[in-house]
């Protein structure tokens, strides 16, 4: 038996075994409605294995190991996310207190609660505004710096890179105390600008790396050609390099946006009211529809809402994000 064929058969049998374990464990341990999830998962794996065995050598280039692996990856990444969605759809306290994965009495009441909560509305607005502004400024500054790092020879280039590296390693929490103190002294505590400034500092290192990696891939000759044609260094930068680097800039922007959208430490330390509180910090201040309600399902609903932008960005730009995260990271 050829190694490829052997691997296909082995992994098909493994998929069937995994599927049977899911179905069996579900039937043995799990009550309805959650049982359906286990049976569906089991069926998918059994079918994968069955197809693998039936397909024979008609699709020799497909690695069955990686198909089973891909199914396990999707199961791994989506289980907590699907749980949040399902928790957010649970209707009322009784349903939440019943426990389990799927709702017994599904409905959208939690989303209504969340959108009536004014702190959350403000937080959404703040987070969008702050993230977009800091992303724009950060990417512009990083583009200039990365161009200098990748293209120019100047004294102190090592310093720029060392500063970026040092800041990427910096413990953010060590700064919130002094910043809290300073921001109050100069009057920008609990304002947008008070959050934008730290977001800039901590997103620049990553952006500079991603962008300088992209800049290094850009062909030198184009810039020289522009200069031979009479362009100044500045024009060569603006007219030749910027369009070529646009995909890199875009990737850096997405990564920066993720950081700003994700931040919690600065959010809870440097803001206190709806004037500037960002989404992650606001989640920690949630209350239920009434004081007797647990905010669990409401927080789940809010979490789902704030994950939607991430989901959209990931679906649209997954290829760019992956190349940005990996480019320049490893060239040893």
């Amino acid at each position: 038996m050829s190694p490829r064929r052997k691997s296909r058969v082995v992994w098909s049998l493994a998929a069937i075994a995994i599927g049977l374990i899911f179905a069996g464990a579900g039937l043995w341990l799990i009550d309805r409605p959650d049982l359906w999830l286990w049976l569906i998962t089991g069926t998918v794996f059994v079918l994968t294995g069955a197809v693998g065995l039936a397909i024979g050598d008609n699709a020799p280039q497909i690695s069955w190991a990686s198909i089973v692996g891909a199914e396990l990856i999707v199961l791994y990444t989506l289980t907590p996310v699907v749980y949040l969605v399902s928790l957010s759809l649970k209707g009322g306290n009784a349903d939440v207190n019943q426990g389990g994965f799927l709702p017994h009495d599904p409905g959208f009441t939690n989303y209504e609660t969340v959108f009536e909560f004014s702190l959350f509305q403000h937080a959404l607005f703040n987070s969008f505004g702050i993230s977009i502004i800091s992303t724009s400024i950060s990417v512009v500054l990083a583009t200039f710096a990365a161009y200098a790092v990748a293209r120019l020879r100047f004294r102190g280039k090592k310093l720029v890179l060392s500063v970026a590296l040092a800041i990427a390693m910096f413990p953010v929490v060590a700064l919130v105390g002094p910043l809290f103190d300073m921001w109050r002294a100069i009057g920008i505590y609990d304002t947008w600008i008070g959050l934008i400034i730290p977001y800039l500092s901590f997103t620049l290192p990553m952006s500079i790396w991603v962008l300088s990696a992209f800049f290094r891939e850009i062909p030198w000759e184009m810039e020289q050609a522009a200069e031979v044609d009479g362009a100044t260094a500045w024009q060569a930068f603006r007219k030749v390099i910027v369009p070529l680097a646009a995909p890199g800039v875009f990737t850096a922007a997405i990564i920066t946006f993720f950081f700003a959208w994700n931040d919690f430490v600065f959010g809870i330390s440097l803001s206190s009211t709806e004037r500037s509180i960002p989404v992650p910090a606001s989640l920690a201040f949630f209350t239920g529809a009434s004081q007797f309600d647990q905010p669990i399902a409401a927080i789940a609903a809010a979490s789902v809402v704030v994950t939607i932008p991430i989901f959209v960005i990931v679906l649209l730009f997954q290829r760019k994000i992956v190349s940005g995260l990996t480019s320049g990271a490893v060239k040893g």
Partner: protein
Amino acid sequence: MASTTTLEPTKAAPGGRRAKARSPESAENRLGWKLAGPAVAVMLLVTAWPMLRALYLSTFSYRLTDPDNREFVGISNYGVVLSDSLWWRAVGVAVFIMVVTVAVELVIGFAFAMVMNNILVARGLVRASILVPYGIITVVSAYAWLYAFQPTTGFVNQWLHLDPGTNLFDDFWGSIFVICLAEIWKTTPFVSLLLLAGLSQVPNDAIEAATVDGATWTQRLTKVILPSMRAAIMVAVLFRALDAYRIFDSPFIMTGFANGTAPPSGLVYNAMIQRVELGLGSAMSVLLFLSVLIIAFGLMKLFRVDLSQVRGD
């Protein structure tokens, strides 16, 4: 910018232009700093200045609620922190989380990278689904895992038919277990992407040659694949280790730093923001920064690597 500026004087400049420029070297220097300067200034503004201020404040006994009794105490704040078992326990907790999560993430991340490297169908789907944990807000992931393990409202206890009174968050090890689980779930995708980049640089001929020579799968893995991925593994370990040591969001949401689950960043936050003890808190900030530096240098020494080299400079 003067029109005489040349970016690469030796290659690009026609003779006449170069003669006119008094010093192309210094022009390139100036352009370099004009472009990189603002970024460096912004990066230092929010780090160097507050850090120096923390260094200064750490020499005082100073509570924000009681500013009149501010008093210079020299380095005694450091003595107070370093002789407190609470601080060392926090360091221990963070190191434990760091070692456990990085080890598990490397193993799972490598498996994921192998899958992504070999898969031909549904590439986009796998890539997108792996980016979801990476992009999701850490606080949201913490809530998802916190609620999953809640005794009555969660699903884990029910699925495993645990005793209704069982609450993992009642004790230290249960809390740490869920904190590590959430951390691993969220950050394994990042590790797997770095390892994927490394995997794509493993020369295919070397693997094929090894196969022809009759090397088993394990031999190919340990003798060919892993050694050529050394740089990728080091970058992943370095970045993830420092991130894990600085962990804050998950324990904040899950335990509120109770049950002895506070890492050093939790102690700093409690001292600075909750108790507004700026003197003592600043001393802890400085110590946290130093401990991160020690870990970073330790790892670099261990790997014998200059990170700027790995980054391709």
